[in-house]
């Protein structure tokens, strides 16, 4: 028609739709899982009225949020007030573009790769978009015209940028080992080989702590602590705008788990099974299905871990948090990077002695 390859456009469009709706669905049921897990750990039952085991509870919550009255404070900065949650949601969903969900499927005679964009700066793109996510919080806090929201937004922004540094440095050590930024290549390096967690345990620990801080998740959730700043940067929001902020946090959690699994735990590699042999037995499409199930299983384990930690540990005070980020994690990440560098060079050039 117009010299555009329509098949690629449709293929990518369908993939994007599936990934976005999938992550929205998983974020929705993360809220259900959060309440159930919290209840189980606190000797009670959690929602079990709306549908069997309370499975329709997220639908009820979503409906409630839509039905609430949209309150926009008179003195808030109009356009920015609405932009804040939108930015948070957009950046949360945009990061899902580079995660490899599986290898490839074979439909209609074509090989469709299950990654929306296999750019060769994969992980750097994720970092860039996560940094943009800070804007969503800052704009939300500023546009609320409320000094407590502003304080909450400032705290959240400073927390995120402090922990991004150590996340990046911990990642550099990993990149020295893998030699590539593309997530797909990293996953295929870990298929049927040793996972990166065994090569970089300290790096994983630092990355994990920083992922908690990036998602504003306990123990780092003073930006939205209920008993400290009313509700922090989302005090003045009601109805679906608040829903967007809360949802963006769950989507962030999901995507952070996906990134951690892809980097350190082998992505969609099924553990203890030789995937190459299995591929010859079952064929491409079934293999892709198993890969996706395996990846989702690992991500769910991580999400449950996030929730487990939330309901165990009390939250940090602001100065303790900054102390941890700057005075402990950055030197530790730097030390990790230096030691990894030394070992890589030793391995490469033989002993210098």
């Amino acid at each position, binding site marked *: 028609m117009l010299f555009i390859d329509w098949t690629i456009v449709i293929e990518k469009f369908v993939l994007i739709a599936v990934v976005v709706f999938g992550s929205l669905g998983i974020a929705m049921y993360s809220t259900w899982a959060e309440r159930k897990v919290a209840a189980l*750990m606190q*000797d*009670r*039952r959690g929602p079990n009225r709306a549908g069997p085991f309370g499975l329709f509870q997220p639908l009820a919550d979503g409906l409630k949020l839509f039905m609430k009255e949209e309150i926009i404070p008179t003195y808030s900065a109009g356009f920015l007030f609405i932009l804040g949650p939108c930015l948070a949601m957009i950046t949360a969903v945009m990061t899902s573009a580079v995660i490899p969900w599986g290898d490839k499927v074979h439909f209609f005679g074509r090989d469709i790769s299950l990654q929306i964009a296999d750019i060769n700066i994969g992980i750097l793109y994720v970092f860039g978009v996560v940094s943009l996510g800070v804007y969503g919080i800052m704009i939300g806090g500023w546009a609320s015209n409320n000094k407590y929201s502003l304080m909450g937004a400032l705290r959240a922004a400073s927390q995120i940028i402090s922990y991004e540094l150590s996340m990046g440095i911990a990642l550099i050590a990993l990149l020295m080992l893998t030699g590539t930024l593309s997530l797909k290549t990293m996953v295929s390096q870990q298929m049927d080989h040793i996972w990166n967690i065994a090569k970089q345990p300290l790096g994983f620990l630092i990355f994990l702590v920083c992922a908690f801080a990036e998602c504003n998740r306990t123990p780092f959730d003073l930006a939205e602590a209920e008993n400290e700043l009313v509700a922090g940067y989302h005090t003045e929001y009601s109805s679906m705008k608040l829903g967007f902020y809360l949802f963006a946090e769950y989507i962030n959690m999901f995507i952070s788990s996906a990134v951690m699994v892809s980097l350190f735990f082998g992505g969609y590699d099924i553990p203890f099974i030789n995937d190459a042999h299995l591929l010859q037995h079952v064929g491409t499409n079934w293999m892709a299905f198993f890969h996706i199930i395996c990846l989702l299983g690992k991500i769910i384990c991580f999400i449950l871990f996030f929730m*487990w*930690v939330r309901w*165990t540990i009390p939250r940090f005070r602001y100065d303790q948090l900054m102390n941890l980020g700057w005075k402990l994690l950055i030197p530790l990440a730097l030390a990790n990077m230096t030691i990894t560098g030394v070992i890589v060079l030793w391995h490469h050039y033989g002993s210098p002695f």
Partner: protein
Amino acid sequence: MEALTNRVKPVDRRPMSFLEKIYLPAIMKGMSITFGHIFKKRPTINYPEKIRPFSPVFRGLQILNRDEEGRENCTACGLCAVACPAEAITMEGAERKLGEEHLYREEKYAAKYEINMLRCIFCGLCEEACPKDAIYLSETFAPANYQRKGFIYGKDDLLIPDPKTEPEAYAKAKGNRANKETVK
């Protein structure tokens, strides 16, 4: 500074060991405790399918009593209205006509008997004041309602079912009050 009592205990102020300073072993221990709680038995019950039983002297909704032949006990004497500290009971008396002997015990009965549940404090003083064993507090709650006038319970809301016409409902409404038939 001297200690104020002799029950002073020395506080452990040793500096934290390395394992304590990194917090990770303590976090792991806390997480294993939380994990253990997932598998413990929960004390929550699924209300309203299961209800925790009340004691026999629980003071719930009022019930206007009848005797075994089905005649209403209440004679509209007004002692319960006087005894009520919240002034929740109002009544109007009426005279028993010739054909109504099977309905009412005595010659005077309560034509209109209303309890305002929003005022009632469920103290049970009306039960203690009644000379005819005509009102007592049962085990049910006062259910919720959307409007104020739904809370003013009239005689047909409060009266116990007739033992002649509906014996099972009568027995169910009597509950285990037979156990607390004290002397009046």
